[in-house]
């Protein structure tokens, strides 16, 4: 049986990579002694499937993942599991989902972010936002260990607005290379340096309707 879990990550734990976070979650589940289902084969592993990975350094108000149990866990399992987690990782909710429900990765297509800055220069952000939306395309260069490539930031950004010293952005996750928070900061606040990033939500948007996974 499959359960869908929503968990928040604070600024201290945000620096864990997705792989390290996964290992941490698995160890905490093992400490709790829950009846989890394992894969078959030479190297059996827990059946956990994640939604879109959070980037290193990005805190989150809600990450999603699905857990597979071999038999129903006890009623208060979520509370017991919370005890096994370090400070800064909070289990917000869990609910059973149908075994054939599609993978989170396949359905979550929109993420919202809050980017915080110590301050902005004058009213520069407004101008950057206007310029961005009037342009046909907004090519940016993405550098990764694999090399450099050009992507169109306009295809990836769903919405952007300024609120005090923050930028609130919505990013498409399924349209090619999805835009990263640091890239958003470079486009709309190139003179400021980021002081914190939070993923504020993950959504499934279909035909203009938005829902949580």
């Amino acid at each position, binding site marked *: 049986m499959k359960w869908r879990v929503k968990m928040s990550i604070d600024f*201290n*734990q945000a*620096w*864990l*990579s997705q*792989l*390290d976070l996964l*290992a*941490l979650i*698995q*160890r*905490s*589940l*093992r*400490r709790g*002694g829950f009846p989890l289902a*394992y894969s078959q084969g*030479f*190297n*059996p592993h827990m059946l956990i499937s994640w939604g879109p990975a959070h980037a*290193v*350094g990005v805190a989150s108000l809600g990450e999603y993942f699905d857990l597979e149990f071999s038999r129903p866990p006890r009623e208060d399992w979520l509370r017991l599991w919370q005890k*096994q987690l*370090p*400070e*800064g990782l909070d289990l917000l909710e869990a609910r059973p989902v149908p075994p054939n429900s599609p993978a989170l990765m396949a359905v979550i297509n929109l993420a919202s972010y809050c980017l915080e800055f110590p301050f902005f220069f004058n009213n520069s952000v407004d101008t950057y936002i206007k310029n961005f939306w009037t342009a046909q395309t907004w090519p940016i260069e993405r550098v990764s260990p694999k090399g450099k490539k050009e992507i169109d930031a306009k295809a990836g950004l769903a919405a952007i607005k300024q609120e005090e010293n923050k930028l609130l952005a919505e990013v498409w996750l399924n349209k090619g290379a999805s835009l990263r928070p*640091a890239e958003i900061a470079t486009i709309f606040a190139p003179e400021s*340096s*980021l*002081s*914190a*990033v939070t993923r504020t939500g993950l959504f499934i948007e279909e035909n203009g309707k938005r829902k949580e996974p």
Partner: protein
Amino acid sequence: MLDYALLSSIEKPAQYSGQEYNRYCKDWDHNQARMAFLFPDTYEIGMSHLGLRLLYEAVNCRDGLLMERCFAPQTDLEAALRARGIPLFSWESRHPLTDFDILGFTLQYELSYTNILNMLDLAGLPLLAAERPGWPLIIAGGPCAYNPEPLADFIDLFIIGEAEEILPRLLAMASEVRAGNGSKEDLIKKIAAWPGIYIPSFYQIEYDSDGKLVNISNLPPALPQIRKQVIADLAAAPSPTKPLVPNIKVVHDRIMLELMRGCSRGCRFCQAGMIYRPVREKDLDCLLKQAREQAAATGYDEMGLLSLSSADYSQIIPLVEELLRRHGPQGVSISLPSLRVDAFSVGLAHQIQKVRKSGLTLAPEAGSQHLRDIINKGVSEEDILTASGAAFAAGWSSLKLYFMLGLPGETDEDIIAIAALCKKILENGRHLRPAGSRKPLQLSLAAASFVPKSHTPFQWQGQASPEELAHKQKLLRESIRPLRSVTLKTHDIETSLLEAVFARGDRRLGPVLLQAWQKGCKFDGWSEHFRPAIWEEAFAEQGLNQKELAGRNFSPSETLPWEHIDSTISKTWLWQEWLKAKQGELTKDCREGVCSGCGACC
């Protein structure tokens, strides 16, 4: 302190968070005796080290004492700390290192010595002990402390041997002296005659005009010989019931279950096999209890059974069976990192594969019987073929084999014999593997360069020259070339040369080390950071020559640089072993009945 801009600019920032599960969070004000354990290499290596775990527990389990951790920051963080003027800090409470009473380095590897200087500098402390009258006290221990001389200029005090008992006592004493407004000098005078404590400033070293060490004399109250500390009852020694769980994947990311300490097999190249004597085992019940506690407290799915030769643990079969029975169903696998070369060990390795498959490594060390007898490996060609055959029969299709190049008495024939041995292993394996398996058999060879170490029978012998080692590596590569299913990895020769210089070096290396660090050397054990040309310069400026130092043979009458460090292994016994090695004579494991008189037990 480490803000978003800094953390987002460095690799694997989670290693610096200090937010690990099961870390001790002891109250700073309540615990007045405070020390930091400094690991002079990266977090990933340091957190894989058993000694850190044991001492972290030995100190922190006592009320009033506190130990926090610090690791060598990687170069990206170091640059950021220097740019912002942030002094190096402890992982747990983020206190600057200068806030502690004691800073203790572990010496696991000679090529981490520049990192020690670098960490002291990052903490804002003077590097030379003589220029550092104030607190904190800088101490060091671990295997490389058995020849502490190259670090004598920088370290206030060394602990020789096992520190679980003496370290908490030292910390409590330091805090007491400090509370009474005493100085570091006051503390040092009080403890100068404690067994196991070596204070370099209380010993005078004399050299002759050729730079040869001629005499070591102690200044009272320090004792002429510093005898190593030994934990008599291993089962009663503090062992973490809730071990730290690192935040990022570390080199050995598993439960560390120490089965026993010491090894009596007597391989003549092996320093650990000498200095950790006598052999002390934990009993079965103690280990099962510790395994249960650690599994429950960490959630790890792997358990490493640690010792110098785990198949030699007297209860190994019942232990493995019981651990598999109790923890196997929860998906916890067992690993045995140090196996002997025999069918029994391979059988064990096969048995522990029930939960999860893993690779198999055997260490014949030398290719010919002649050379294996010189090093007292106690392994015959038949043993090697039986062991590898058993492995292939059990379904492994690849094996890792460890060898050493440059062992005393080695000839070209001994090297060619490695290739011949590999050929036999493969031929033998093809007959024994399960019918129907098609995957070609593979051997991965790792050939290290032999580094003679102090307190071993080979301590008098110089290292083979870099030219000889290059020749040996080339010869090995050529001899295995016809065997297509054998791959070879060799160690960097210049790295091994520097390791050899420091392993048997004396105090004249202090200024070289300082100069090399000043010129930018650090992380010398990492090929991407190692800068042999700078080291070469640093040696030359002190009028020393690396090749001469590494290759020098000590005569039997010479005073060795570590003569005052008593490992309890008698020098006469070591010399006899050296003579026996030259004759290719074996010395039996004393657990088989005959005591050879090494001195560790009596």
